[in-house]
């Protein structure tokens, strides 16, 4: 099981990082979603991987249990990343509608100043 979980985290992270590096709004949103899945699975494994174990201490004898804290952390992380993804989609949509471009990178052409200013810096 460790192998499956570990490779799942690895593959999800790799795919997420690749998609984020595409620097277009839609792949980046998908990529960040994949990254948040990866980190959620990763957080689960932080409390040791077990199956069929309750996340509470049993009052009856020696029954073992799984660490409940990572589950609480994952729950918080899921809620936050869900909300963040929604915000991101809205911002990306707003940005696309305003600028007709879904590029994340602030390119030179957008940032360049008005043509033909003869500021002090480039007066040669």
């Amino acid at each position: 099981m460790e192998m499956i979980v570990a490779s799942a985290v690895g593959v999800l992270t790799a795919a997420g990082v690749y998609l984020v590096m595409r620097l277009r709004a839609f792949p980046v949103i998908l990529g960040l979603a994949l990254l948040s899945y990866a980190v959620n699975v990763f957080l689960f494994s932080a409390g040791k991987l077990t199956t069929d174990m309750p996340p509470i201490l049993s009052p009856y004898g020696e029954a073992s249990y799984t660490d409940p804290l990572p589950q609480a952390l994952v729950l918080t992380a899921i809620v936050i990343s869900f909300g963040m993804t929604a915000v991101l989609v809205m911002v990306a949509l707003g940005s696309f509608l305003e600028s007709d471009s879904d590029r994340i990178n602030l390119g030179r052409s957008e940032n360049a100043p008005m043509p033909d200013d003869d500021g002090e810096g480039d007066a040669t």
Partner: protein
Amino acid sequence: MSHWIIAPVILPALLAPVIGFVMRHDIRLARVFSLAGALAVLAIALGLVVQAAGGETSVYRLGDWPAPFGIVLVLDRLSALMVLLTAVLALIVLAHASATGWDARGRHFHALFQFQLMGICGAFLTGDVFNLFVFFEILLIASYGLMIHGGGRDRMRAGLQYVVINLAGSTLFLFALGVLYATTGTLNMADLAQEVPQIPLEEAALVRLATMLLLVVFAVKAALFPVQFWLPGAYSNAPAPVAALFAIMTKVGAYSIIRIHTTVFGPGAEATEGLAGDWLFPAAVITLAIGAAGVLGARRLGPLIAFSVLGSMGTLMLAVSAFAPAALTAGLYYLVHSTFAAAALFLVADLVMAQRGGNDTLTTTLPASAQNGLLAALFFAAAVAMAGMPPLSGFLGKLLVMDALRAPGVIGWAWAAILAGSLVTIVGFARAGSVLFWKSTAKAPAPDPEGRGTAAATGAAGPMQVAPVLVTVGILGALAIFAGPLAGYLEATSGQIFDRAGYIGVVLGTSGGS
């Protein structure tokens, strides 16, 4: 157990939905309540500083669960100082936003502002690393809304980039927390500070990884090289009052590095000692260089100020990277100063832009602003503070930082970076100021004798619009005048930060304090 510790978090959290739902159609009512809320937070913050100044570390246990199991808020001198800094800055920014009408250019400015305030205060007060993550997310999600307040093509695009880089940072934060929890079994800062030194060096690979991951996350927030690239675009395209408020956001990153990498991973922990400092120092030098070069090369006022913020973060992190009490004292002084200097610059730039028809290109072809003399004087004062010339606090701050960085291997790079960076910054600001305020009269399209422009010059800024800037510049002066008492407080603060045993004892309740 004093309940006032949680008040700076609770009050904005309660106020924000009320403003958002009840006062959404009445901007004046929202302004009154928002300003009243900020004033109340300021009063509470003053009370907290008085409480913490005695040197006592107070712990607030949420739900009264004892420390390693429940979440705690911890108030010490550093937290109190940062909350006070936030409250003062928030009040100034709110006054500016209300006076200039920025808050009416989009919806829910005040509600988002209060949420932002809640997140920042919470991040400064929490004593739990996962809770720090949660407060980071709160302040970020509010800042996304504020960043794109008012809309517009460039701002939306810059906002999208800002959201993406911060979401990537949040993911990294969670990875770091997972690693940390897996190795130590706790996320409470005091408990971590107790656990990490017990890890022997040969088993420390994972905790060292977590240290560096957290450093990268906080470096994203603090805009340190090589993750500084988002700052100029975001800050220069954000609405001016929001950019001024963001002056404290980079300091949240700096605060986290000071707190986590000193108290938890700092001196005394064999596994991670010196790890952060070795990387922070070159990163800070390069950040400072990029900031200075950007100030010199910027062709618009917004990016110019954003790059000067970058330079100031470089100077601040140079002081932090020494991880020594004296350097930290200097760094904290510079932190307080640079927050107000950056805010003053952004607010002045907003007044200048408003009178140049919203155009902040550094060009001589635009007519001068209507109140050229006043605005030039304010810009001059703020630039003097940011560049680090006497008589304002920037000079003292840089002097203190340089005085603290005297170690043989450090002095060459640090002094060269700070001195050369200051010189280049001075040149950059002088160029920008002269282009903006002096040269434009010569080339104005229809110059009349007083040098007033014809078309672009809009109404003059009223006293209420100038007052926040004047107050900020006044604070910068006061920081210089009262540098003695302030440095005394900060010296006690850094002494307290390096007193790991005291912190652990109070938070975990092993030394009987509460």
